[in-house]
């Protein structure tokens, strides 16, 4: 397998405050990778460093090339970043949110709308509804659908389980898995819910205060003593 995304010794800071102190990680093509860690460990910042919405240093390579430019340039290369708070355009309609997902693409989107409809059948009935009036779970689904419209090579999800009922969390992760298996989308997911993230991902990284503390195949990490105690709670 070849690496789709490679971070080498990446630092990031908010003003004078350092949030990442040299993070290195690799995401292979077609893989699902989870980034775990407590609050403030630098999970969100890692995604932000990739989409360049935070001041960053170090080397980031995407599909073999150094990743340059602002967030809009990163998006155009095929990285879909669903940020904290889901990045929903609450004031716009569901349809407009989906259309914005495909903003970087040209040509006919009919097939894409149909395919999104096959994953999220309820979206079609709600297409003219203001996105902000959807429930939290629906908004999370919408953010996935929006990211899918972008036809990304890499899908980055920031805590998709946040604020959702357990059943909905399962549903969201099932769809992420489907997108990965059926559409070949590589996924980098940041999660506090280590249990479900380790089930989904093939590889996982554990961050502690801005550094990678542990990494390896999910199955190994699930057995790992400190991961079990700190993040899985048994």
């Amino acid at each position, binding site marked *: 397998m070849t690496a789709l995304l490679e971070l080498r010794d990446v630092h990031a800071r908010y003003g004078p405050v350092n949030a990442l102190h040299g993070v290195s990680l690799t995401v292979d093509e077609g893989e699902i990778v989870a980034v775990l860690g407590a609050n403030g460990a630098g999970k969100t910042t890692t995604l932000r460093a990739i989409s360049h919405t935070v001041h960053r240093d170090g080397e980031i390579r995407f599909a073999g090339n150094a990743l340059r430019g602002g967030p*809009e340039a990163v998006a155009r290369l095929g990285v879909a970043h669903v940020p904290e708070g889901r990045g929903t355009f*609450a*004031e716009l309609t569901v349809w407009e949110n989906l259309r914005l997902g495909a903003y970087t693409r040209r040509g006919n989107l009919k097939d894409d709308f149909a395919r999104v409809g096959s994953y999220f059948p309820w979206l079609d009935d709600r297409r003219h509804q203001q996105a902000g009036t959807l429930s939290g779970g629906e908004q999370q689904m919408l953010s996935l659908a929006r990211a899918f419209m972008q036809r990304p090579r890499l899908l980055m999800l920031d805590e998709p389980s946040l604020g959702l009922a357990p059943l909905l969390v399962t549903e969201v992760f099932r769809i992420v898995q489907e997108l990965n298996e059926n559409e070949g989308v590589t996924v980098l997911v940041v999660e506090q819910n280590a249990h479900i993230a380790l089930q989904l991902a093939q590889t996982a990284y554990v961050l502690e205060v801005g550094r990678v503390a542990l990494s390896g195949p999910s199955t190994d990490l699930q057995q790992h003593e400190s991961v079990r105690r700190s993040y899985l709670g048994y």
Partner: protein
Amino acid sequence: MVELARKLSLPQRRLPGSPVLLLLIAACIFLTIGSLRSTIFAQLTVAGVATGVVFGSLALALVLIYRATEVINFAQGEMAMAMVYVAYQLMLWGLAYWEAFFLTLAIAFVFGVVTQQIFIRPVQGRSVIAVVIVTVGLFILIDGLVEWKWSANQRFMQAPFGNKIYHLGSVPIARQDLGTIVITLVSVTALWAFFRFTKLGLGMRAGALRPAAARLVGVRTNALLAVGWGLAAVLGAVAGLMTEPAEYVLQPTLMQPVLLYAFAAAVLGGLESPGGALVGGIALGIFLNLMGQYVHFVGSVLQLPVAFAALLLVLLVKPTGLFGHRTVRKV
């Protein structure tokens, strides 16, 4: 119809709060009955609409920039005035009125884009005050440049619509008023369609609402901000070119009172709302015209203070303006 609405992707719009809607319906009924009973009333109403759409289109330009940049562009009126001088110059060079008109709109777009890139972009993202001060500086700069190039003397331009008067029943309607209304509404509708139906328009709305999220889906927000300034300048130019024939003369102060009324119209409509700006402008235009005729102490001197007193009253009752609203949002 449903199928058509789906195809056009018309969103299910929220209606403004029903008291506002009732008020507007009541106002329309009042105007209709008045117009049916009195020729002068009807004449004043039509003339008021013509003045009002001009206020409305400049107000819309202000709203456009307010939504994208979150500041009031105090130079909007002066930018419009400068564009009228450009049209004047083009006609001096021998262009016919409508050739000059459309060429001026193209120049206005470029002017707006360049202005944003040179003057606004460097201070964008700093404090609101910094941007506001820059727009005030622009006001003075444009004023100075226009006086330097064309002097402050009054100039005379070709009239676009002539002096013809039509009669609708017994009501005389000036061709100029009709022309002003049609041209302005066509520009506003074109702009609305651009924002509603095009990808670029959607990107601009997204960028104005949530810049960070818009950049994440690949919207080049900086470039689109400049386009927004360009479009606002075009709308301003239309307002300017429609103001000039009503004032009969061209001078550097042309748009200053119009800008004040446009502020009032924009705030009345609720600063965030493009439709509100237009409705606010038309309401203000009619209101001023009727006041001038029927409330004798108002006259022409007190028009501006009375307009602002009315505005104050509306804002006391509804601080967000007629169409302002808070966005519904679930967590």
